Structure formats: structure tokens, C-alpha cells
């Protein structure tokens, strides 16, 4: 009810806004400024949600709750003058909120939960025996579209558009499915990084307690690229069959995206430079040059992306030439398979940007992405700081919403964060805590019987 009301009012208000020449926010001329950020931190940043998430159920009244848990979590702030503050820690949501409002950081990173409060670490560092050490940390992934620069032609560097976004959608789908089906994780949050990539937070207890070695092994499980040839990162697939994980990725995701979307978006076969790169992957040079000639000639052969791809496929799969069995897959993998930043995932102490931060270069908010609808996600129309502030102002005075963000486009993101991620996670934490507590109680009862 309130919402519908607010939409109507907003429309009216917007007209009023422009005509009344509101001094504070005519039409935001740039996407980002520290003044805007201050308002964002003042009214929109979801402190209590972040606090609840990071507490993993320890903020309750249950006897098993560890009151020190949240305060052992490291946060780090990047300030306006590029000063970087590490090892920040907070005792409560209010504490967190006050510090952020006061310091107005352009970026907030989240680190691990340490054995002791990170701001008190100096008291615990002894020679040789390091008592200050990470004990829990989400399993995280960082996928940056610049890793794909060798195969995307629509943008380069830190730009991203709807033609190369499918590469991110592919990465999300492949990795999300593997994390759930292969590794058995359930509480996974995907977040837009604000400019050119996505982050993944795996928050199951089992994931948070993984050793560096285990993280490394998961990262390697997701790795198929073996160096680059001619400036192309090539996937190397050997063996008589593909591992079930790779086979599933190929059949369910990679081939489809490649054939229906990428070859068109990137015009992979109609531009000579681009298809030459693909032909370079073929180990049999005579086959490669045969196809090259055919396409260069151009008169009678097909010039459509699909047509040429079909031609290439049938030639490689015809079985007439040896050693080309895996060639089609290698091409598809090289052009689609996720390229994660290996270093980010391997170590517990790697810091990663918090969701709902604002990216200073674009002004876009780092909002969650629904993996089931990642195809429809449009990074270019993500709410920006200036948009949100306009919406806030347009909302006017009538509002009796509990939270300011309900009047803005951030509403959708926060509701999604809560319903699909936070609430199931909280439920699971509570269950985990209760069951381990009752197990401990039983155990101590048994031993105290003492016969």
C-alpha cells in the first residue's frame, strides 16, 4: 500500500522537484561524490543486515552464542584521501554504523574472523608463536571481466556492456551449480562488484572453516586454463572423457551460450582477426588453413556466425582428422569457461569488498545478483548513488516507511538479500548452534555421571 502510494507521489514530486529548482539536488551531475556518499551512509546503507549476516547467529540470546564473534571480524576502510585503515573491528551494529558514518569510507572491505579482536592484535603477537590468526572466513570468488579481454571485442578495460555481460552470467551459473551440487554448499551470495565483475560469498559454516589448502584445491578444481598461446588463454582438455563437472558445464551452459549468444555478440566468425584466433586453437594446421581459405574466399561459403560455426564443428567432429576429438570443446571452453582470480580465493586473510558499497568510479551500488536470473541482470542500469539520492528527495515527507531505502530502487536489492540469502542463513545458523549445543550438553551430562 505504501509502495504504490509512494510511486504516485514520487512522480508528482519529481515534477515539483524540477520546477521548484531544489538547490541540493537538481539533477546529479556526476555519479559519485563524497557528499552523496555521506547521505548514502546516513540513510541507506543496511547496517543491521550486514551486522546480522556477519554475526552468523551469535548476536542472539542463546547460551551457545559467542559474544566475541562479531568483534573478531576484520573490516578495512579506504578513506577519501586514499588512506587505508586495516584491522578495524566493532562490538555491535551501532558501533559499525557510527564508525562508517563518521569516516565515510569510499570502500569497505571485509576480512576474516580472527582468533582475537584484530584491533588488539599487538598484545597477542609473540615471537615465533603466532596467536593472532584467522579462524573463519567465507569462501570467496572474484571474477573480473578484464580477464576475458583477449576474447571480448565490444569493450575493453573497465567497461562492461550487455554484449559481454553473458560471460559473467556463464561464470555465475557454472560456479554456483558446482558449489551447490559438487561441494554441497547452500548459502551463496553473488554480488555485482560495481564496475567490471562479480564477487561470490559462500557462507556455510563448513565453508568458513575451510583451511587455505582446501580453498586452494577448490580454486584448482575450477581452473582449466594452461597458459596462453598467441595471446589467447587456452583451455587444455585431455583424457578420453571430460570430468563430470566439466561435461555438465559444457552441456548445460557453455555450448548454449557460445552458440546462441557469444558468437553473435562478439562477431567471432565474421571478422578475420577474430576467427583466426579461433582457428589457431586447432592443432592440425592443415585443417585450420583449409577452413581459413574457405572463409577468406567468401563467395560461396556461409558468412553468418552460426553457419561458419556449424561448418567448423562438422569439420572438426567428422573424425577424418586425428587428434581433433576435443577441439570443439577446447574452443568453447577457451571462450566461455569462468576465469576466476586464483589468489583471492586461496587465502583466508584476503579482504573483499562488502556488498552495498558504492563504487567510486561509477557510482554504482554493489547489489546482489540472483543467480537464477543472472541473464537478465544489466550492469549498466544498476542503481547509482545519484539516482538513489534523487529518489530519496523525490520521496518527500509523507513517508511512513520504516527504512529510507524502501523509497528507492535499493528496496528490491535489500529485500532480495534478506529473503533469498540472509533469512535462510540465519535459520541454518540457529539450527547448527542449537544442535551442537545440545550435543555438548549431552556429552557433559554423560561424563558427569561418572560411574
Amino acid at each position, binding site marked *: 500500500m505504501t509502495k504504490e502510494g509512494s510511486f504516485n507521489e514520487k512522480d508528482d514530486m519529481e515534477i515539483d522537484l524540477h520546477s521548484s529548482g531544489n538547490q541540493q539536488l537538481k539533477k546529479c551531475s556526476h555519479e559519485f561524490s563524497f557528499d552523496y556518499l555521506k547521505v548514502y551512509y546516513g540513510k541507506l546503507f543496511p547496517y543491521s543486515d550486514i551486522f546480522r549476516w556477519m554475526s552468523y547467529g551469535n548476536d542472539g540470546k542463546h547460551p551457545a552464542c559467542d559474544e566475541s564473534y562479531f568483534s573478531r571480524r576484520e573490516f578495512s576502510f579506504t578513506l577519501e584521501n586514499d588512506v587505508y585503515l586495516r584491522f578495524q573491528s566493532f562490538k555491535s551494529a551501532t558501533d559499525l554504523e557510527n564508525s562508517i558514518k563518521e569516516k565515510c569510507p569510499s570502500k569497505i572491505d571485509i576480512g576474516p574472523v580472527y582468533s582475537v579482536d584484530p584491533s588488539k592484535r599487538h598484545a597477542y603477537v609473540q615471537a615465533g608463536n603466532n596467536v593472532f590468526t584467522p579462524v573463519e572466513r567465507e569462501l570467496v570468488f572474484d571474477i573480473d571481466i578484464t580477464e576475458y579481454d583477449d576474447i571480448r571485442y565490444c569493450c575493453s578495460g573497465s567497461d562492461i556492456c550487455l554484449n559481454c555481460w553473458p560471460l559473467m552470467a556463464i561464470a555465475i551459473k557454472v560456479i554456483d551449480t558446482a558449489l551447490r551440487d559438487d*561441494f*554441497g554448499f547452500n548459502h551463496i551470495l553473488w554480488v555485482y562488484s560495481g564496475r567490471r565483475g562479480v564477487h561470490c560469498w559462500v557462507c556455510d559454516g563448513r565453508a568458513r572453516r*575451510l583451511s587455505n589448502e*582446501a580453498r586452494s*584445491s*577448490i580454486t*584448482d578444481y575450477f581452473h582449466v586454463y594452461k597458459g596462453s598461446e598467441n595471446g589467447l588463454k587456452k583451455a587444455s582438455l585431455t583424457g578420453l572423457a571430460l570430468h563430470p563437472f566439466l561435461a555438465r558445464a559444457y552441456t548445460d551452459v557453455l555450448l548454449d551460450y557460445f552458440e546462441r549468444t557469444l558468437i553473435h555478440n562478439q562477431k567471432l566468425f565474421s571478422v578475420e582477426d577474430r576467427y583466426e584466433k579461433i582457428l589457431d586453437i586447432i592443432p592440425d594446421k592443415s585443417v585450420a588453413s583449409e577452413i581459413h581459405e574457405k572463409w577468406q574466399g567468401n563467395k560461396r561459403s556461409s558468412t553468418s556466425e552460426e553457419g561458419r560455426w556449424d561448418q567448423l564443428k562438422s569439420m572438426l567432429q567428422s573424425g577424418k582428422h586425428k587428434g581433433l576429438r576435443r577441439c570443439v570443446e577446447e574452443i568453447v571452453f577457451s571462450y566461455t569457461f569462468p576465469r576466476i582470480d586464483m589468489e583471492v580465493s586461496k587465502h583466508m586473510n584476503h579482504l573483499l569488498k562488502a556488498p552495498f558499497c558504492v563504487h567510486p568510479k561509477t557510482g554504482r551500488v554493489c547489489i546482489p545478483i540472483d543467480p537464477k536470473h543472472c541473464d537478465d541482470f544489466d550492469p549498466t542500469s544498476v542503481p547509482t548513488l545519484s539516482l538513489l539520492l534523487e529518489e530519496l528527495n523525490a520521496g518527500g515527507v509523507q513517508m511512513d516507511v520504516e527504512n529510507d531505502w524502501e523509497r528507492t530502487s535499493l528496496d528490491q536489492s535489500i529485500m532480495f538479500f534478506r529473503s533469498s540469502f540472509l533469512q535462510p542463513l540465519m535459520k541454518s545458523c540457529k539450527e547448527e548452534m542449537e544442535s551442537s549445543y545440545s550435543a555438548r550438553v549431552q556429552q557433559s551430562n554423560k561424563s558427569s555421571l561418572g560411574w
Partner: protein
Amino acid sequence: MEILRSQKKPTAEAASNLSLYRCAPSLEVRLDDFELYAIDRLRVLKGISNGLSRGKRPDEMETLVNELWRTNMRHPDVTQLINKDLISHFVLRLVYCRTDELRKWFLSMETALFRYRFRLESLESQRMLMAEFQLPYKALNYVEYERVKDKLTQVSRSIGQSSNVDTIFFKVPFEEVPELVANRRVFLLKGNAYVAMNQVASIVVSHFRSNLSKALVLTNRKWTSTIREQEKDRLTPIVEALGSSYLGPDYSQPMEFTDISLKDIDQLANTSFPLCMRHLFNRLREDHHLKHGGRMQLGLFLKEKHYFTPFHVLCWTY
């Protein structure tokens, strides 16, 4: 859980010769044996170190380890074989616990030794060792196996191994087998890895390694706090000497020699002389003459080789 594939039951003879070295044996050992057993084991470990640094393949290493063990870890009394194994291991723990570098080296070599000895054990013996480690593995029951067997075959094919219907598979949490996960050599389902019997060595070895690593740290503490002082007149000097002992060929004593006579020299020149000397000697034979420098060099060489005929006789002979 039942194991469907194997029909054999472990027999008494399948008891393993391999120890996990969980705790020091309460045996009495003579002081000489204390040192000698350790030296023998050290030869094995250094042999392994050489083999690894020469880049030997796993099958070559297996042979090497077998040979090293048989050569050095023998004992006239067969019943003492296992004791020698245990005693030597624990003595070397004392020797190699003392610094980080020593610990790293010892850990690597003992783990390699264990890995290859494990590979040489029988299947039953291997399974008993797995049980000793109390690994959280479960052999698959029939229903589970049927559900995943296609995928298991696919994984086997992807890593170039023939899928054998008799292979036993185990289900373990994926954290237990990081190497296998990293190289996609196992099927993963809902957080469990499906590990073939022949891959199990990897699990066992990594447990061995982590147990030994922890033990070494504890040993070091005990050494520095009590043992070193307590044993300063008896064991400590031996331990410290072992740490810096050289175990290679003994070059300090002159080798056995026999006099070389004129008639032998021809033959010896072709087989045993270094090239420079051979060249000089051949020139002597051809020209019946050698300049002063050459004469000095060859002369000194022959003198050293205990050839006592004067040089001029040599020249005239040839």
C-alpha cells in the same frame, strides 16, 4: 557398512610391517644400536633425497626405496626388524626436530619413505592402515554405488585409468583429499569425494605427514626443555653428532693399491689413466721422447701410482 566388491577377509598374515610411529616404543636399546640404527635409516633417507633431487619418476622411486630399505634396514635377527624401524625413526626425530630446516627435510623424506613403502604393501595391509588412521571414509554400499557408477567411470576415463568393476570406492568429505580435488581426479557430490582404492594412498600419506609434523614440534619442545639437559652425557652428544654426520663414501684413507709393473702399464693406460695422462703416454710411445714439462707431469703421475721404474727407463723401453 558392507563392502560389496571385496570378498576376502583380512588375515593375520596381512598385518602390516608399516608403522605409523604414533608413539615411541618402550624398548630397551643398546647405546651402539641407538646410533647405528639411526645411521642406517639416515642412509635410506639420504638416498631418497638424492633420488628425488635427480627427478626420478614414482615407479623408479618405488624401486629405489625398496632397495634402500632392504640394504640398510636389515637385521640378523628377523624379529628385530620392526624394532630397528621404530627405534631408528624415533632417534632421528630427536636429531631432526631441532630446527625448522631440519624438521622440513625430515618430514619430506619420511613422508616420501612412507608413501613408497605404502605403495608396496598389499591391499589388505593398506586397508588396515587406513583403519588405524581412523579416516572418515565409508565404503560405498550397493545402492550408492549404482547411483554414481556412471560418473565414477567417467572420472576414471578422464584421468586415463581403466575403470575396473572390482575397484572399491570410498566416500570421504572433500576436505580430506585436496590433491585429488584440485586435479579433478575424483567425483564430487554434495561435499563428498568418491575415492578409488588406489587413490587412498594420497589420503593416508597426507595424514601421516600432518601427524608427523605435529609430533616433531612437540618433540622439539621436549628436547629443548628436558631431554637435552638430562642426556647431556649420554644421548645428546650422539644426537648432535648424527645431525652433522657425513654418510657418503670414505675418502680419507688411502685406497688399496698394488704396484704397477712395466708390462701392465700399456693396458692400464687405455683403461684407467685420465685423458691428459693417456695423451702424454701415447705421445711418449709414438715419439720415444717427451719434453721436460710433459715428463714432469707424467712422471709425477706415475710415481703417485706407485710405479717405481725410473722415467728414463720408460723412455728407452718405448
